[in-house]
């Protein structure tokens, strides 16, 4: 169903009829959901669910093959002392490390773990369309089956919505059947929840498979009200089109408590159907060890310490 035909006027008309977001109300709903108390069996379930949804990430200038290999090993066997721990949802790296990641994962039994690459001049998005396309192609050709692109926030804030829209369309075309496309909104730069709602719908109309909150390079990143609004957007999109789009919060989710709060948001906003790595991912690195320590506590009955989880 074509809600938008790519012209400036159709995009504007579509976004204009979206309801506004009352910031105070949205924050208050997010805060109330954060008071949910998830204990015992439900906590155990949530921890394993969260682990399976992590896009284990390294996006540093100083990333080396060694670092990437270590991360991949962690992804497949997060806890060397406990084989019941699920593998993570994906590995996320820069496009020139995709090949290393894919090779190593395949060598250690991680064939089912996809490699996601950030793309389109991540994190700033400030480059020509040609550079952004090449960035994506490099990743795809090296074996990435997920592309995390950034939108052009400068264009969004200028009101050049056609530019934002068409870039997503181009990258989606390149992905084709080879990869799913996550579109990073960089909500910290969009600032208002109204913008978050609009950008979410714009991305979905342009073909995003996932909408993602942030690059993780600036703060604020995946705050609860932002994730709430994005979950409302995918819920509404499903009602309009029958298609479920995924959501990925990234940045600032460091503790088990944070992760479980995200799962509660998903369950009570978009719905249980989204509680699968196919429709919900968490972009994180330090989070995994905290989840493992909490898992250990549930298993053993006492609090673990940093010496009992691996540094990678």
């Amino acid at each position: 169903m074509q809600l938008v035909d790519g012209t400036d006027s159709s995009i504007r008309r579509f976004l204009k009829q979206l309801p506004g977001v009352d910031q105070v109300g949205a924050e208050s709903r997010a805060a109330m959901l954060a008071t949910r108390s998830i204990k015992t069996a439900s906590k155990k379930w949530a921890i394993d669910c969260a682990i399976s949804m992590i896009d284990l990430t390294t996006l540093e200038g100083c990333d080396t093959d060694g670092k990437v290999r270590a991360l991949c090993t962690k992804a497949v066997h997060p806890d060397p002392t406990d084989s019941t721990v699920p593998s993570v949802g994906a590995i996320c790296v820069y496009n020139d490390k995709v090949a290393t990641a894919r090779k190593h994962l395949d060598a250690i039994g991680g064939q089912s773990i996809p490699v996601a690459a950030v793309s389109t001049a991540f994190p700033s998005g400030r480059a020509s369309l040609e550079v952004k396309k090449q960035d994506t192609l490099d990743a795809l050709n090296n074996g990435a089956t997920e592309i995390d692109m950034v939108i052009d926030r400068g264009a969004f804030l200028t009101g050049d919505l056609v530019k934002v829209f068409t870039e997503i369309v181009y990258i989606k075309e390149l992905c084709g059947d080879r990869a799913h496309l996550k579109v990073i909104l960089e909500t910290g730069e969009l600032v208002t929840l109204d913008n978050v709602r609009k950008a979410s719908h714009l991305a979905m109309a342009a073909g995003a498979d996932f909408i993602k909150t942030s690059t993780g390079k600036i703060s604020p990143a995946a705050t609860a009200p932002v994730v709430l609004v994005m979950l409302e957007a995918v819920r509404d999109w499903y009602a309009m089109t029958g298609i479920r789009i995924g959501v990925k919060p990234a940045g600032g989710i460091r503790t088990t408590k944070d992760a479980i709060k995200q799962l509660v948001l998903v369950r009570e906003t978009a719905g249980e159907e989204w509680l699968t790595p196919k429709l919900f991912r968490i972009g994180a690195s330090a989070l995994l060890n905290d989840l493992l320590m909490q898992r250990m506590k549930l298993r053993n009955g006492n609090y673990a310490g940093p010496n009992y989880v691996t540094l990678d």
Partner: protein
Amino acid sequence: MTFEYSPAPESTAIVDISAQYGLFINGKFVDAKGSKTFNTINPATEKVLSKIAHAQASDVDKAVAAARTAYTKVWSKMAPQERGKYLFRIARIMQERAREFAVLETMDNGKPIRETRDIDIPLAAAHFFYHAGWADKLKYAGAGDNPRPHGVVGQIIPWNFPLLMLAWKIAPALATGNTVVLKPAETTPLTALLFAEVCQQAGLPAGVVNIVTGDGATGSALVNHPDIDKIAFTGSTGVGKGIARAIAGTGKSATLELGGKGANIVFDDSPIDQTVEGIVSGIFFNQGHVCCAGSRLLVQENVHEELIEKLKRRISQIRVGDPLDKNTDLGAINSAAQLARIKEISSSGDTEGAQRWSPECTLPEKGFWYPPTIFTGVTQANRIAQEEIFGPVLSVLTFRTPQEAIDKANNTPYGLSAGVWTEKGSRILWAAKQLKAGVIWANTFNKFDPASPFGGYKESGWGREGGRHGLAAYLKGGEK
């Protein structure tokens, strides 16, 4: 894969409920005359929590005498700032014992622990903290250069927000220099009795606060007592009118905070997701046992279908059950009597042709429960659009134009609260101007603050509580 929330019960180990309680008179707990008692139960389980003293007329006499002596000999002579310091102490102790109060309130009232913990108790403590600061600033209250208190005030509070209503009554009364005899509701005396302990811990002079537990007869004795200078009552409109008649010709003044049938008006340009939250909060917060509940939803006809669909989806997520479970959203109905009333009035919705809807929910076997319910196709002529149900039942009506919304909203003998949902600022202010309600919430609902005056127009009562304007009720202002 389903994400079921495991039980997350708040421990009751923190409370220490006595097998029975006396009356709190002149700083001590004493037995009622004839040692008459009645039980207070947990409405979620029907288990008896404690035996409560039933104050007779002579007990009320003693309490009023203690309040009078305390007023004449101690409280009226005390420097205002020192009076304020007692209130600061009380506020701080309430904060220290906050969890204890929250668990106790949930057990005695039936409301969810999340609400007592996050709303009732913090607000009650804040109310004392706020009013403590007024004690020595009364010349700025707009009641004259040296406003005087009435003397001894009689206060009768309801069961829906027991500790919070106690705070709304006692804090301003004491801050302005009055002494108090307070009667908590029959079904919810426990947090008032714990509060008496807090008064002792704060070193409050004996007789400044007296708590007399009992029933309607105890309340009457208090209202009719010749040595009470002023009455403050929160409860049903019917009883409020009775009080107004009873004090006629006695020279007593009164503030009354009575019932309501609040209209929650939703325009077609509202921020719809937050609107749905506001509607849910408006009628299901506190099981709908709220005088200012948004119990009439007035939806602009062109967004009715969309709104109801979203509302039903949201209501299906409401968790009904054990009030002590931290994840419970909707707790127990406070009493068998109240449950019967809710059932009776709601059934008129069925017989009068409105469409009832509730989500699927398993209600516990013991205790008093009612599922969250909406009736669509309601019009002004239905009983469920006119009468206060005081339960988790929403009546949905429609309107075509802004003026029609206002007219329907105002078309009631009540006038306590109203809600307005629209992103257009000028329309919010226009609606606020037109609505005959004492409290108007725009793009929000059920928000309370000690600094914000609360009270109703028309048959919703007399006077305001909270803020500078709420002090006036407790100061002699030349009224007769």
